[in-house]
């Protein structure tokens, strides 16, 4: 392989001379330790290289060896439950190799070379296959069946295929292409991270992705294959929201990228996910999760690569026909990594020092999300091709919480869901601190038919009613601030109370309480309809002569306030609460018996 030598070192950027055969984005090995680097600029015979490790100790004259291949990830059984750094080095293997601290120049392959997986063929010799076809499966763990695919560019006839225990690099099948060339197929594929994996075509995504977080699922839903962003100042709860989605969303595979964030947060995920049980499969959440951890103190160039590493893995699972959720926390740190490298290249900066191509890069990244018809032939008997999806949820950390900064603005151009986190809400310990007035989801109309079919036909109407109550509260709050609550009509005062109830009893959700962190759509519907029933009955009772004080003091309100803590098998409680509402909110004086019985039940 071609070898050049270093002429300049400036932080994570190294300039080398003598790499004339190499191409842009080729991987190179820098210095005596063979540090990984990627060519990002070529001027004459000078190649600028971003190095994925600390460059201390490098100097002019040190060797740079070309590999002739771009930065790629290894795709195959063994990715799930793994923890990788930004360039797919398995961190647990590095720990065994080098101890608790990440020293330089250590490396390990992304997939375990020794481990044997049981491969079960699903096609016969003689079958004609094309890129993306499933030739067999590996039960990677109890949750995920790993489907072995024909690499995208290949097609032909399977000549031989064998089941049994193999390592990822063993040949499990041979394929003869139309020109007569013979290809050995192994379970492992290699794919360059900066190139999106191909699919047949994109299709419109309309199926809701249930996250178990009420404010998201009911008010600002995301679909399987959708794109969302969570901007917010520090302390507003971006990471907790991301973790909640990683934990409870109904996806088959979750790829979580910790991009330039805190080390302890990754540790938190690593300790918690193996313990937590996935409500859909009943198995530990870790079994469906791939983690990419490039914390803030790890090399900045690897941070830049980490989002590409993560999304390429997500695409691979999508190609198997799975719904994948990819989370990037935080895309701002990724953008900052781009800014740092761009600065070292002495490029002309755009807004706030960010490179001029920031918007293009962000858009290209989010565009790798979506629902697709996967490559591969349509199975006999099936009318439609296999589909898979990637939902991308990126958090953004705007400096000073200022949403006009370039990363937020460029992100908003491409995402369809905006969950705006508010520090004011966080100060009041209203969590999740998603601001219901400024957030939006452009998927609401798309998911409505699914809601009608799967939840209840009135769900959309209830959602809209609750939303308008919250909107109205905001307008009335101005008046209250100026002239006091008494200035409002009784109906408006009831509305204010209902809005408070929606906020406190529905929107607020405690991520750290076992009985509150996950709410199914059915539970969300019952809870919301209960609150709205109280609202309707309160208006009726008032019209029939009940005093506001009596209505607001109805004992059932405490039961409503605690309804969110009900277990899924206690749904009957909602009927009991509803009947309490009916009996306690009547015109005129409150019947004492109803009060006593309600008190007795508590």
């Amino acid at each position, binding site marked *: 392989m071609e070898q050049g030598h270093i*002429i*300049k070192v*400036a*932080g994570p950027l190294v*300039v080398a001379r003598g790499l004339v055969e190499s191409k842009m984005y080729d991987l190179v090995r820098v210095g005596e330790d063979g540090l990984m680097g990627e060519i990002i600029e070529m001027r004459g015979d000078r190649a600028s290289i971003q190095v994925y490790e*600390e*460059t*201390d*100790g*490098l*100097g*002019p*004259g040190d060797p740079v060896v070309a590999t002739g291949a771009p930065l790629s990830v290894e795709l195959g059984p063994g990715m799930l439950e793994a*923890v990788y750094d930004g360039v797919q080095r398995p*961190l*647990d293997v*590095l*720990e065994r190799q080098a101890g*608790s*601290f*990440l*020293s330089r120049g250590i490396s390990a392959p992304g997939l375990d070379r020794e481990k044997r997986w049981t491969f079960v063929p699903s096609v016969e010799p003689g079958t004609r296959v094309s890129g993306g076809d499933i030739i067999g499966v590996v039960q990677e763990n109890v949750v995920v069946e790993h489907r072995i695919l024909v690499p995208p560019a290949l097609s032909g006839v399977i000549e031989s295929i064998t089941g049994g225990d193999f390592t990822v690099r063993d040949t499990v099948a041979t394929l003869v292409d139309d020109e007569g060339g013979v290809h050995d197929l192994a379970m492992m594929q290699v794919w360059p991270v900066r190139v999106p994996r191909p699919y047949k075509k994109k299709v419109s995504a309309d199926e809701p992705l249930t996250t178990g977080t009420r404010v998201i699922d009911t008010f600002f839903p995301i679909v399987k294959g959708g794109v969302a962003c969570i901007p917010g100042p*520090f*302390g507003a709860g971006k990471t907790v929201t991301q973790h909640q989605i990683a934990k409870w969303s109904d996806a088959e595979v979750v790829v979580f990228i*910790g991009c*330039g964030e*805190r*080390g*302890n947060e*990754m*540790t*938190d995920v*690593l*300790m918690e996910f193996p313990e937590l049980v996935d409500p859909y499969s009943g198995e530990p959440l870790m079994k469906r999760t791939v983690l990419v951890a490039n*914390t*803030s*103190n790890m090399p*900045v160039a690897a941070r830049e690569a980490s989002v590409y590493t993560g999304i390429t893995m997500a695409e691979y699972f999508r190609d198997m026909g799975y719904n994948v959720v990819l989370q990037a926390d935080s895309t701002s*740190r990724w953008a*900052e*990594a781009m800014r*740092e490298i761009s*600065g070292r290249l002495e490029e002309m*900066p755009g807004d*706030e*020092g960010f490179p001029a191509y920031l918007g293009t890069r962000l858009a290209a990244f989010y565009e790798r999300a979506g629902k697709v018809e996967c490559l591969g032939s349509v199975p006999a008997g099936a009318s439609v091709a296999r589909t898979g999806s990637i939902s991308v949820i990126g958090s953004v950390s705007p*400096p*000073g919480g200022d949403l006009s900064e370039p990363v937020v603005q460029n992100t908003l151009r491409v995402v369809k869901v905006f969950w705006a986190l508010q*520090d004011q809400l966080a*100060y*009041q*310990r209203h969590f999740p601190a998603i601001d219901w007035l400024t957030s939006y989801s452009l998927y609401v109309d798309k998911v409505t038919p699914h809601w009608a079919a799967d939840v209840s036909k009135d769900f959309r109407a209830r959602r809209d009613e609750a939303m308008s109550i919250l909107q109205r509260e905001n307008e009335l709050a101005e008046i209250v*601030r*100026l002239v*006091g*609550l008494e200035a409002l009509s009784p109906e408006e005062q009831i509305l204010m109370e209902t809005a408070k109830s929606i906020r406190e009893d529905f929107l607020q959700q405690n991520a*750290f309480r076992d009985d509150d962190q996950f709410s199914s759509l059915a539970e969300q519907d019952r809870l919301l309809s209960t609150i709205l029933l109280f609202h309707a009955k309160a208006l009726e009772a008032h019209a029939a002569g009940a005093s506001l004080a009596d209505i607001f003091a109805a004992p059932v309100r*405490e039961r409503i*306030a*605690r309804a969110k803590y009900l277990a899924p098998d206690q749904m009957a409680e909602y009927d009991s609460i509803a009947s309490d509402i009916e009996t306690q909110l009547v015109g005129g004086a409150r019947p004492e018996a109803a009060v006593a019985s309600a008190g007795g039940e508590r």
Partner: protein
Amino acid sequence: MREYRTTRDIVGPLLLIEKVVDVTYGELVELEYPDGTRSLGNVLEIDGDVALVQAFEGTRGSNPKDTKATFLGRSLELGVSRDILGRVFDGLGRPADGGPEIIPDERRSIYGAPINPVARDFPDDFIQTGVSAIDGLNPLVRGQKLPIFSGSGLPHNELAAQIARQSAVLARSGAADQAGEKLEGEFAVVFAAMGITFEDADFFTNEFRTTAAIERTVLFLNLADDPAVERIATPRMALTAAEYLAYTCDMHVLVILTDMTYYCEALREVSAARKEVPGRRGYPGYLYTDLATIYERAGRVKGRAGSITQVPILSMPDDDKTHPIPDLTGYITEGQIILDRNLHRRGVYPPIAVLPSLSRLKQKGIGPGKTREDHADVSNQLFGAYASGIQAKELAVILGEAALSDTDKAFVAFADAFEDQFIRQGTHEERSVAETLALGWKLVAQLPRTELKRIRDEYVAKYMSSEAGD
């Protein structure tokens, strides 16, 4: 020895040295100026045979013609051994107390290496600081980095000293506290001063001396009149010492870094001299990454007994939390303790602004087996009620007390009592977590029962009457 007298340019703290051979990035350089002044420096960039060197102790007294530069073939290091305890060093790790040189067990690069995220142990051991506003609402745990966001004239030094003093005396976890047993492992304080005044530094040294904690303390002092660029090395010196004490000597180390604002300004000075494209307010675009390499050195490592807990102090210019320094710090650290000028003016010590303060690790550090089962709920309820009280007060300012509902009045009374009894305490008053929780129950008992939405019924039944008293 590679000595050069080939300096071409001198700009601010930077020197451009030509015709150098075999120089590496990050290499340590000894500079000798014509007037005899010496300074250490390191290589920021090496391009062919031209090295860009940053002089930690400034460039006063240098000139291109006669400046001598010796490249030492290693990066900036600190010699460590147990004998560093009780000693005072300057900002570059040289003894500054007149004592002998340290005979090091080993020499470590001050830049350290990142902890492998897989090797981290999650910080979940409660540290009882004895300060109610921290223990009760935003508890500190071992291995956490929890900065104090302050402003000029606020008592952040007193608070940091109180935390150091009271956590040091206990040196045991909350669980052990309840069981009445001492936790294994010793406690040490590493103190790094960057650009603070002699008086502030003197306050801390005296504080450590009078409490006899000085034997457990290592001090690195770069004062206001010391070279500014030296400050870039100071926190890394301190953290290298802390890592040695924590992971080699199995000690629980509390690192106090003050004042991070001056550190960042030194970084900006170098960046400006290099004519780098600035980010916000002239600070370099890599400020986040740079701060992360300091703050992320807090933590615990699996299989090692020690831990590093960081309490950085930074003064917010004009009390502005959105200034890049507190802003980026807040994005890296696990919460923040914010001091409030209004509380301070009203004479409340410690003037901790409870609502915007946050400890991200509290969920894991409190609860049964750590502090007490009702801790999280009580803390949430106190937050919620105090926030409601503050809101009601704002309403009362506009509409007058009379316009408030009875519930609102209860919240106003609660907020006042909360500030006066819960937040306020003496600089030498130490409250156990049980005392803090009892105080919390006493306060929430003033509220209408229906407003206690955030406390589980069973805890209300179990603790309300016994804890709150009658």
